[in-house]
C-alpha cells in the first residue's frame, strides 16, 4: 500500500474516478498544464487530455456557473477554486443555483457538481488565501459540505462526493496537504458522506472538530481520556454520532479554525443543547479562530486555535 500525503491521495482519487467514468470533467484555473497551484491535478491532462482537464479563464463565477450547466446535462464536473478566499464571486452561483436546482425543477434537473477548494491558514500565504468560511456554505440548504482531515479519508470522501447526486463543496486544508503521509490504498474505497467518525474513543469529554484542527486537538488531548469526533461532513450533520458521545461523556469542546461568531461550532453547540442538554455536566466551550479579518502570515499562528487553548478549554469543562 503506498504512503500518500493529502495531495497525492486526492490526485489518486481523481485519477481513478476519471478512469472509471468518462463523464467526469476537471475544470478550473491552472488545473491543466500546471497541474494546479498545489499540484492536486498533476498528470491528469497528460492522462485524460484537454477535453477532460480544462484550463479555464480566470473566472470564478463563470467556472462554477458553467459547471452547473454541465452537471444538469449529465456530466460530472469537478471544479477547482484556487483558494477559498476567491470563492466569493462564485457564491451567487453556488447559493442561487447549485443548491436549488433540484428543488426548483422538482427533480427534473439536478446538479451533481463537486466544488473543490483549499481552505485555511498555516502555510504563510498572502491576503485572502487562508480563509476558513465553511459556515457560509453550511447555512445553504441543498449543498453538502465535506472537510477531510487525512489523506485516507480525503480519498474516500472525494470519491463519495464525486458519486453523490447533490452539489458538494469539498474543502481541503492547505496545512494538511503535505503535513503527513499515511497508507492510502489504491483502487476503490469510499467513506460515506453525512457520517462523522469517532477518531479516538474516550469517556471524560467529547472534543468535536474537523479538517486541520483535528490534529491540534489530538496533540492537546494526549494525556486525557477524551473522545475525539471528526465530523468529516458538516452538512448534512451526523447528529446521532455526536449525541451518542455526548450522552457518554457529558462534556463538550468544539474546535474550529473559522471565526467564532456564527461559525459552524455554534450550530453544533446549539444542536447538542436542544437534544441532549440533560446529559451535560458542563457548559459547551468553543475554541475557534478570532472574530477578525484573517491576518497575514506574521500573525496567523496567533489567530489559529493552539494546543494550549484547546487544553485549557478541556480542563475548564473537566472542572464541573
Amino acid at each position: 500500500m503506498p504512503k500518500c500525503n493529502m495531495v497525492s491521495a486526492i490526485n489518486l482519487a481523481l485519477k481513478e474516478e476519471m478512469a472509471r467514468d468518462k463523464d467526469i470533467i476537471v475544470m478550473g484555473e491552472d488545473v491543466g498544464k500546471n497541474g494546479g497551484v498545489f499540484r492536486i491535478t498533476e498528470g491528469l491532462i497528460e492522462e485524460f487530455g484537454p477535453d477532460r482537464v480544462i484550463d479555464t479563464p480566470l473566472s470564478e463565477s463563470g467556472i462554477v456557473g458553467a459547471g452547473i450547466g454541465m452537471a444538469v446535462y449529465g456530466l460530472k464536473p469537478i471544479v477547482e477554486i484556487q483558494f477559498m478566499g476567491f470563492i466569493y464571486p462564485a457564491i451567487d452561483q453556488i447559493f442561487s443555483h447549485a443548491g436549488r436546482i433540484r428543488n426548483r425543477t422538482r427533480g427534473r434537473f439536478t446538479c451533481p457538481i463537486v466544488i473543490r477548494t483549499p481552505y485555511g491558514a498555516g502555510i504563510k500565504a498572502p491576503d485572502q488565501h487562508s480563509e476558513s468560511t465553511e459556515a457560509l456554505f453550511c447555512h445553504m440548504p441543498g449543498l453538502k459540505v465535506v472537510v477531510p482531515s487525512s489523506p485516507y479519508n480525503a480519498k474516500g470522501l472525494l470519491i463519495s462526493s464525486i458519486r453523490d447526486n447533490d452539489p458538494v463543496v469539498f474543502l481541503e486544508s492547505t496545512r494538511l496537504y503535505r503535513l503527513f503521509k499515511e497508507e492510502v490504498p489504491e483502487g476503490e474505497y469510499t467513506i460515506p458522506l453525512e457520517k462523522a467518525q469517532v477518531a479516538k474513543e474516550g469517556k471524560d469529554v467529547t472534543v468535536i472538530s474537523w479538517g486541520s484542527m483535528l490534529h491540534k486537538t489530538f496533540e492537546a488531548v494526549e494525556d486525557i481520556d477524551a473522545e475525539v469526533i471528526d465530523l468529516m461532513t458538516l452538512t448534512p450533520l451526523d447528529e446521532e454520532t455526536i449525541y451518542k458521545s455526548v450522552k457518554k461523556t457529558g462534556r463538550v469542546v468544539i474546535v474550529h479554525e473559522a471565526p467564532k461568531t456564527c461559525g459552524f461550532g455554534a450550530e453544533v453547540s446549539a444542536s447538542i443543547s436542544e437534544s441532549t442538554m440533560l446529559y451535560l455536566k458542563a457548559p459547551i466551550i468553543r475554541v475557534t479562530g478570532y472574530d477578525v479579518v484573517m491576518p497575514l502570515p506574521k500573525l496567523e499562528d496567533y489567530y489559529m486555535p493552539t494546543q494550549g487553548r484547546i487544553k485549557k478549554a478541556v480542563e475548564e469543562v473537566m472542572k464541573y
Partner: protein
Amino acid sequence: MPEKVVESFNVKHLSILDEKGVADESLMPSLSESDIKRMYELMVLSRVFDERALSLQREGRIGTYASILGQEASQIGSALSLQKSDRVFPSFREMGVYITMGYPMHMLYQYWSGDERGMKCPADLNIFPLCIPVGTQIPHAVGAGMAVKYRKEKVAVTAYFGDGGTSTGDFHEGLNIAGVFRLPVVFICQNNQRAISVPRETQSASKTLAQKAYSYGFHGIQVDGNDIFAVYKAVSDALIRARQGDGPTLIECFTYRISDHTTADDASRYRGKQEVEEWKPKDPIFRLRLFMSAKGIWTESYEKEIEEKSKEVVDKAVSVSESISPQLPKDMFLYTYEKLTQRQINEMGEL
C-alpha cells in the same frame, strides 16, 4: 513605427419587415404560408396568455407576474427556430418561448401562482426554469454548451436575458468562456430598453449591445426585435452555425416592453406616455398582420377564429392549473437533496 489598425469590426442591424408590413424579399427567410400563420398564431396565443395572467394577478389568483407585452416577435421568432433537443436557459420574461416550445401552459400559470411544480420541465423538453437573478443563467448555458461539445452532439444552446443582464459579471464571464472554447451557444438579448426603471443608456456606454460580442471574439448582430422575420432569420442562422461547430453568436433584439416591469411595478414613475405611444405602431403582431393581409392570408374571420381558439386554450390552461391538487406542506422538503436528511425528517414531524 506608424500606428496601425489591429482590429476593427462593423455591427449590422437586420430588419426585414417594416412598420407598414412590407418585407424585403431579398432578405426573407424561407417560410411557407403555414409557417407564417404559425408565427402569427403563436404571437396571438402568447398575448392572450399574457393578458389573462395580468387579469388573474389583479383578481388575486396568481402572484407577481412579468408581462411580455410587445416582445412577442423576439420570443416567438427566436423559439420557432429551436429544436426540442436544443437547450434553453430563459430569464423570467420568456413566456412566449415556453409556449412556443410546447411547455404545458397550465404549468406556467401554476408556477406564477406560487407552486414550483409548474417548473418541472417535461422529459421531452430541454428548457430550464425561470431564472429570477439577472444574468446568472448565462454561465449555465455556457456549461451546457461545454457538455454538448464534449459529447459531440448536434444541438445548440440558447441563453435569454435582457439589456440589464448585459451589465452583470456573469454576462462577461459566460460570453468570455463561450468565445474561448467556441461553444455552440446563441446569446439572445431582448433589449427592451429598460431594467425596471433604469434605461438602456445607463446599462452601457456601448452604442449597441450586439457589439459586445466582438470583444469576446465572435459574431454579434442587432435585429429589429419587433420584426419576427428578422429575429427568426438571425436566430436560425446562428443556431445552424452553433450546431455545425462554428461557435457562439450574440443577437440583440431591439424591442420594447410595453407593460410595467412586473405587476408590482408602476412604469409611469419613470417613463412618459409619449414614449410608450411611439412604440405602439411598431407592435409585432400588428405589423405581421399588415404583411399577411397584403398577401391575402389574413382575413377578419381568420383573426376571429385565432382569437377564439387562443382564448379556449388559455381558458383551459387556467382551469387545469386551478384544479390541480394543492401542494402538501411536506412537499417543500422533498427535493432539497436526493434523500431526506435526518434533520429534515424531524422537521417534517413538526408540521
